[in-house]
C-alpha cells in the first residue's frame, strides 16, 4: 500500500486546476456562465448545487469530454482546453456503472496501465494492490455483473486511481447506492484521497456528502460559482442568500437595526460583518440550532408549535408566530416531549453575532434541505 502512495505522490500532488471565466452553451441553456474556480493542490473540492446548475458540465470540460465555448481550463497553469480526453491523465469515476462488462475487476483496473505499456506482472501487481486499497482483494476475478453496485463503484475508483491521475474526478459516484453503502464508501473515498494526496473534484447535489468529505465546497448556481469555502465557513458564513438557504436550513427572521446590533424578539444581538445603518429593517439569518425555545408555561408565547420532526439526536420544531412568520428550531430529542404540536413557546436566540441582510434583498428560491 505504501508503494501506491509513494508512486502517486510523485504525480498526484501539486496539481492545480483552474476554471477561468468558462462558458458553455447548449442551445438556449447557459450550462456554464462564466465559471471561475481554483482547486488547490491535493485538496478535495466538492462541487455542490441544485440539479442542472452545470456541475457535470464543468467536470466534463475538465476531463476533456467537452470543450468550453469561451474561457479556459488550466491544469498546473497550462491551458488544456484543446487537449483530447485521452491525453489528459485524469481518472474519472462516473455516476452510472462504467466498468467494461467483458473484463474482470482486475482487468478493468489494469486497462489504463496496459495502455501505458506496463508489463503484465507489474500491471497485475498494481491492480491487485489498488483493489486491496478499495477493499476488494477477494473479488479480483469477478465480472461487473457479478458484483454489487457498491463493489462496482469501488472497482471504478481503483481503475481511476491506477493510472496515478493528475486529478481525480468523481461525478456523483455514490448516487446510485443505498444510504448505508453510500456513507461507508464516502468515508473510504476520503481516506484514500488523503492517503494518496491526489487533487480531487467531487460533484454532488447532496450537501451532507459535500460538507462531510470536502476540504472546500464550491456552491454553484445557474452555471456560476456562488461561494467556495471550507464546509464550516460555508455553513456559518454564507455569502449569498442562495448559499444560506441551499446549505443547511436557514431562518430569515425580520428584525430592525438598533444601536449595538439587531433587535430580535426581546434581545439585541451583535451583527457579524457589515452593519446596516440603525433604523433599517433587515432579515437575520439564523440556523435552527441557534434558535432557543422554552415552553411558555401556560402563558401566551412568541409562537405556536405546528409540527415536530424527529431526526435522531435532534428534533426540529416548526413554529408559527402570530404574524404568520414561520420559524424553525432544533431541540435535543430528549426535550421533544415538552413541545407537542399546539404548544405555546417562548423564543430567544443564541447570543452570538448573526448575519443580516437588507430586507430588500431578493430571497433565493427556497431549497428544502437539512444539515
Amino acid at each position, binding site marked *: 500500500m505504501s508503494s501506491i502512495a509513494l508512486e502517486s505522490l510523485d504525480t498526484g500532488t501539486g496539481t492545480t486546476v483552474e476554471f477561468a471565466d468558462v462558458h458553455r452553451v447548449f442551445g438556449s441553456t447557459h450550462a456554464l456562465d462564466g465559471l471561475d474556480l481554483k482547486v488547490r493542490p491535493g485538496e478535495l473540492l466538492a462541487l455542490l448545487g441544485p440539479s442542472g446548475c452545470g456541475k457535470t458540465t464543468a467536470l466534463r470540460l475538465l476531463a476533456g469530454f467537452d470543450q468550453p465555448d469561451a474561457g479556459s481550463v488550466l491544469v498546473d497553469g497550462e491551458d488544456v482546453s484543446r487537449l483530447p480526453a485521452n491525453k489528459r491523465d485524469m481518472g474519472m469515476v462516473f455516476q452510472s456503472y462504467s466498468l467494461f462488462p467483458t473484463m474482470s475487476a482486475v482487468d478493468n483496473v489494469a486497462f*489504463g496501465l496496459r495502455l501505458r505499456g506496463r508489463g503484465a506482472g507489474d500491471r497485475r501487481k498494481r491492480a491487485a494492490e489498488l483493489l486491496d486499497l478499495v477493499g476488494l482483494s477477494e473479488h479480483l476475478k469477478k465480472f461487473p455483473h457479478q458484483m454489487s453496485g457498491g463493489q462496482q463503484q469501488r472497482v471504478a475508483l481503483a481503475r481511476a486511481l491506477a493510472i496515478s491521475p493528475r486529478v481525480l474526478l468523481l461525478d456523483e459516484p455514490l448516487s446510485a447506492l443505498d444510504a448505508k453503502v453510500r456513507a461507508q464508501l464516502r468515508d473510504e473515498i476520503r481516506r484514500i484521497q488523503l492517503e494518496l494526496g491526489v487533487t480531487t473534484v467531487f460533484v454532488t447535489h447532496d450537501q451532507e456528502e459535500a460538507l462531510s468529505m470536502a476540504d472546500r465546497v464550491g456552491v454553484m448556481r445557474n452555471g456560476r460559482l456562488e461561494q467556495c469555502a471550507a464546509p464550516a465557513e460555508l455553513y456559518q458564513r454564507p455569502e449569498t442568500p442562495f448559499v444560506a438557504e441551499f446549505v443547511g436550513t436557514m431562518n430569515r427572521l425580520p428584525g430592525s437595526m438598533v444601536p449595538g446590533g439587531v433587535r430580535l424578539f426581546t434581545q439585541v444581538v451583535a451583527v457579524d460583518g457589515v452593519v446596516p445603518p440603525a433604523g433599517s429593517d433587515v432579515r437575520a439569518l439564523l440556523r435552527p440550532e441557534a434558535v432557543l425555545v422554552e415552553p411558555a408555561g401556560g402563558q401566551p408565547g412568541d409562537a405556536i408549535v405546528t409540527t415536530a420532526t424527529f431526526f435522531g439526536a435532534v428534533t426540529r420544531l416548526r413554529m408559527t408566530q402570530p404574524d404568520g412568520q414561520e420559524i424553525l428550531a432544533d431541540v435535543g430529542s430528549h426535550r421533544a416531549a415538552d413541545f407537542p404540536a399546539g404548544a405555546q413557546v417562548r423564543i430567544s436566540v443564541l447570543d452570538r453575532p448573526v448575519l443580516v441582510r437588507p430586507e430588500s434583498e431578493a430571497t433565493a428560491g427556497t431549497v428544502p434541505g437539512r444539515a
Partner: protein
Amino acid sequence: MVALTPTAGAGGLAETQTGGPATSSRRRRRPGIGRGLVLLICGIYFIGPLVGAFWFSIQDKVHGGVQFSAYAHVFSAVGFSDAFMLSLKLGIGTVLISLLLMVPTMLLLHLRAPKFRPVVETLCLMPLVIPPVVLVAGVGVVLAWGPNQLAGTPLQTFLNAIQSGKTPWVLILEYVVLTLPFTYRSLDAGIRSVDIHTLTEAGLNLGAGWGTVTMRILLPSLRTSVLNAAFLSFALVFGEYTVASILQYQPFAVFIVAAGQTEGQLSTSLSLLSLLITWLLLLLISLLGGRNSTKVDI
C-alpha cells in the same frame, strides 16, 4: 426461406430476455397441463412438416419400404458443391460487408449523430417493406441501362466488375441491402442494452484512442448482437431464392428448387440438410455468444 424459421428464436435472443424474471416466475406458478398443451401444439406445428418431409425423402417408391439413397446422393448430385460453395461465399461476403458497413455506422450514429437515427432507421428498414422482386427489378434496370449511358466512366467499370468474375458481387451487394433491417435491429438492440457513451468516455479517460475503445471495449460488449446480426444475415442469404434466381445465379436455394423439378426426394433431403446447417449455425452462435470469457488476459 425455410432456413429462416429458427431465427425467430435467435433474433435479439439475448437482448430481449432482460424483462424475463416476471414472466418466467408467473409461468412457473402455472405448471403442467397448459404449458404442456402449448408445447405440444407448437411442437406439432414445427416438427410435423419436418417429419413429413423426412418420411417422404426416405420412402422407397419402387420397392416399398425405406431407403436413404436421397441422402447418399446429396453430396454427389450434379451442381451440389458449386451451389453450396456459392451460398457459403455469398453468406460470408454479405456478413462481412454488412458488419463492416453497419458496426461503425451504428456506433457513430449513437455516439456522435443521434439526431440522424430516425433517418438511418427508416432507410435500413426499407427492404422490409419493398419486396425483393421490386428491388431486384430495379437493380436489373440499372444494370441494363448503366453500361450504355455511363460508357467510359468509372461507374461503368464498376458495374461491369461487380457482374463479372467468379464472385457475384452484385448479388452480395444486393444481399447487404436485403439484410440491412436485421443487421440494424440486432446492432441497435445491442447498443441500447449497453451504456456505450459512458463506456467510451471511461475508455478515453484511461488514455485509450478511438481504435482501442472500439476494438477492446465496444465490440466485445456488443459481441452477442454482432453475432446475432451475422447469423440472421447468413441464414437469410442461405435461404434466399428470388433475387438469386432472377439474376440467374444458382446458389443453394435455387439449386434445391431446380433439383426438385427432376427429383422430389433429393430436393426434400437438401432442404432438410439446409435446415440442419442453419441450426448448427444457431447452436454455434449461441455457444459463442453465451459463453462469458473467464480468461484473465492481463
